[in-house]
């Protein structure tokens, strides 16, 4: 069956897909397994201590247990995984040049940076929901930047 897509770098896509899935599972923290725990004493927190400040005030909780990463980071990882799933559909819908994806990525980085600075200098107060949303935009833009490397729309005019 020809879906009008060429699937390339398959092994790498499989690694990214499976790895991103487990990254999200670990990032959800010990609460996912109904195990209330505190920072620094579960492997999930240890796994992310190089990557996230793990501030309890800036993190969501699952089953009354703090997630292993902050709201912005869980947004990044979950949206990245969503982006990996959506890659073939995005390519099917429309072929977009790399430079536009790149601009989208840079735009989301700038947005996150402005949000952090605005909050830090008390121009506004961001919330876990707003951090999650902006983190998600960054995660999604990172995934779709790579979409053309894994999927190519075939020329069906022939």
């Amino acid at each position, binding site marked *: 069956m020809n879906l009008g897509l060429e699937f390339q*770098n398959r092994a*790498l896509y499989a*690694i*990214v897909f499976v*790895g*991103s899935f487990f*990254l999200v599972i*670990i990032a959800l923290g010990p609460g996912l397994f109904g195990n*209330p*725990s*505190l*920072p*620094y*004493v*579960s*492997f999930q927190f*240890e*796994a*992310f*201590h*190089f*990557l*996230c*400040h*793990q*501030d*309890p*005030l*800036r993190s969501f909780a699952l089953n009354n247990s703090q997630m292993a990463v*902050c709201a*912005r*980071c869980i947004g*990044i990882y979950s949206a*990245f995984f969503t982006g990996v799933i959506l890659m073939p559909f995005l390519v099917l819908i429309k072929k977009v*040049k*790399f430079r536009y994806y*790149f601009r989208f*990525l840079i735009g989301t980085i700038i947005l996150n940076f402005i949000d*952090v600075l605005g*909050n*830090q200098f008390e121009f506004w107060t961001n919330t876990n929901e707003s951090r999650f949303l902006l983190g998600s935009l960054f995660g999604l833009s*990172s995934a779709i*930047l*790579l979409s*053309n*490397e894994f999927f190519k729309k075939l020329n069906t005019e022939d």
Partner: protein
Amino acid sequence: MENEEMKPNYWPSVIQAAIIVAVVTTVVGLGLVYYVAGSEPSMGVMMISGLTIPITCLIGLIGGILATRSYAKAFDITFPIGTGAQIGLFTGIIAAVVGGIIGQIWNLVDPTLMERFADTMIGAFEMNDQIPESQKDEIITSMEESFEDQSSMGGVLKGIAINAGVLGFVNLLSGMIGAKIFASEEE
């Protein structure tokens, strides 16, 4: 294609980026541990938001970007995202190992640091009256065991292995992005 056939050595870029990531993340991590260890036990200590600047978030992720950028610029070459993924993966794994070694060396410099840190964390938890006593005892015992386990050789190696897995994977992702940005041919 000619560029890919030459395949210059990417290890100097990998090691350079890994060391930068390991040093920055370990210094930030140690700063946090000193802050907690030097504080009075309270739930406020555990809510370390005053110290944790949001910019520390994701420092560990930039290794793949730094390494691929350095490799592409040093040799003025293009390479596929698979090579970027490899470079990022190795950068993350080496950063985790180097970070673990720096942490162990620091334990020799200040052998009581982790003990003070554990005492403050457990003390803060003991003062939390929102958790029922029965559950509290169970969790405190589990915390004490975890801290003990983390300071043993097996615990240290387990920590390095977990960090190597996660840092390796996220840097594999950032390595692919780095390759796409700095080393792909114009579309």
